């Protein structure tokens, strides 16, 4: 067998055995943490393997990686180098957060309208309202199901709808520098300025990435919110896609016109503009804000493995019913993200205030990784499921603090079936309201 200079045998296969194992686990589904637990690897190791495979195979995301087969590589590479419009055909929802805005096709003159389409709806609930409103009527019942509606679980209790969310990162934000050569505008694409996070245009009218995505899968976007007291409006945005990639952020004192920010990294974020509700319903004991995607940067998403020329997309479900949020519907839009930031030409983002979350820093827990249930039970706010609903299933692994997620001061616990397969996981997200300590509840 051929050996590298360092003496380590070079594996003849395109992927190493370890990478194949991670790939197989990825195909079975689950998060990186879940794969790590299943294979007995660290989370970083799993991320590294996935990142290496994406780079080797020149694939754009884990979804494409899961679908990859050796014989398909050639075709996949061709597709990646195809013209931008072809990217739409191959683009599928990204294993990142599912936040969409509008995308317009080709030379359509409805670009501005599409670009400002509502991506997320927020509902601000007065603090003194009936908290049971959280348990609003369910959405349209799934068709052809014999299962009762899920909203009938347990009777509501008057509980304040405080905002459960990790805090977003503070501003100011370092500028994200484009790493790709901007594409020239063409007659069939839309052109936006590239600009940094201060709003300074770095490459005027030089790059276009919006195009029509075809197909794709449903991406769900929902929001949660609360009024902390009688004067402070706090919004929580929770976004997720079908791959379970999600993030939540909370923002205080939000007003129409503000920008709020969803941020994964300095070069991976989305900013939203808070707008008036598109069609608020009179008489509903709630106030709605519309929020639309304002700017976004994709360079640093997915651990930097994103290929410079790879377009990505995710789709908001067409006619996503939102009656429980006041009778509003989101119309389906598809958006394909390029590697540069977008700035709608008709608005000056830099002049708008950027909301800085006023929540206190989350509690930072010591890093914990244990397969010992007794140790896991020492994690603050630890909870376990009843044996009756998890027959024969056992605790397998818990990751707390930094080992769980550097963004959250919580933990995740994995439970396995009697056969040793991953059954489910329980995450605990601590809400940084400053009224408790890492040791336990303050009251």
């Amino acid at each position: 067998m051929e050996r590298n200079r360092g003496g380590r045998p070079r594996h003849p296969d395109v992927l190493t055995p370890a990478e194949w194992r991670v790939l197989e686990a990825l195909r079975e589904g689950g998060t990186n943490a879940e794969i790590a637990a299943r294979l007995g690897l660290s989370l970083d190791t799993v991320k590294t393997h996935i990142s290496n495979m994406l780079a080797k195979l020149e694939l754009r995301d884990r979804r494409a990686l899961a679908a990859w087969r050796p014989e398909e590589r050639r075709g996949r590479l061709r597709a990646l180098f195809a013209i931008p419009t072809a990217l739409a055909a191959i683009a599928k929802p990204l294993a990142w957060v599912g936040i969409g805005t509008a995308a317009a096709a080709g030379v359509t003159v409805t670009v501005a309208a599409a670009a400002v389409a509502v991506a997320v709806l927020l509902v601000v609930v007065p603090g003194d309202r009936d908290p049971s409103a959280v348990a609003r009527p369910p959405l349209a019942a799934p068709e052809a199901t014999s299962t009762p509606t899920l909203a009938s679980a347990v009777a509501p209790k008057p509980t304040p709808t405080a905002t459960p969310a990790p805090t977003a990162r503070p501003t100011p934000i370092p500028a994200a520098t484009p790493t790709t050569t901007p594409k020239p505008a063409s007659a069939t694409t839309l052109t936006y300025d590239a600009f940094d996070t201060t709003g300074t245009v770095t490459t005027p009218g030089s790059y276009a990435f919006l195009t029509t995505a075809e197909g794709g899968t449903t991406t769900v976007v929902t929001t949660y919110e609360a009024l902390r007291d009688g004067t402070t409006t706090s919004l929580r945005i929770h976004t997720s896609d079908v791959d379970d990639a999600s993030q939540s952020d909370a923002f205080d004192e939000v007003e129409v016109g503000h920008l709020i920010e969803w941020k994964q990294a300095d070069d991976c974020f989305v900013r939203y503009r808070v707008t008036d509700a598109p069609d608020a319903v009179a008489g509903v004991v709630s106030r709605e804000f519309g929020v639309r995607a304002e700017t976004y940067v994709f360079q640093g998403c997915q651990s930097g493995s994103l290929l410079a020329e790879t377009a990505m997309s995710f789709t908001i479900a067409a006619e996503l019913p939102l009656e429980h949020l006041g009778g509003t519907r989101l119309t389906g839009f598809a958006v394909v993200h390029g590697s540069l930031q977008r700035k709608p030409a008709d608005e000056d983002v830099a002049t708008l205030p950027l909301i800085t979350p006023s929540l206190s820093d989350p509690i930072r827990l010591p890093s914990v990784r244990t397969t010992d249930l007794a140790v896991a039970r020492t994690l603050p706010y630890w909870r376990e499921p009843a044996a009756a609903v998890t027959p024969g299933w056992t605790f397998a692994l818990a990751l707390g603090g930094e080992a769980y997620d550097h963004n959250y001061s919580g933990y995740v616990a994995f439970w396995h079936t009697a056969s040793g397969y991953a059954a489910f996981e329980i995450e605990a997200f601590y809400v940084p309201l400053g009224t408790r300590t890492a040791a336990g509840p303050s009251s």
Partner: protein
Amino acid sequence: MHEPLVVAERPAWVRYSPLGAQHRTWSSVAVSVYDAETETVYRVHGSIGSLRGGPMAAEKLIAIACSLFLGESECAQP
């Protein structure tokens, strides 16, 4: 589909794939419950096939999530 509901007397929401033409049997299903007393969101996420997909999986996960706070008898599946 996201659906707000109440689990174990706490505000919660569940995500699952509704049955029908768009149903995905392997879609992730998750139930998130907010516990105001501890200011913590507990999120139960199914991994195994029986805890993925549609409303049946959601019901099972709701029962698991409920049992984090209440007794077994109060969280029995319908």
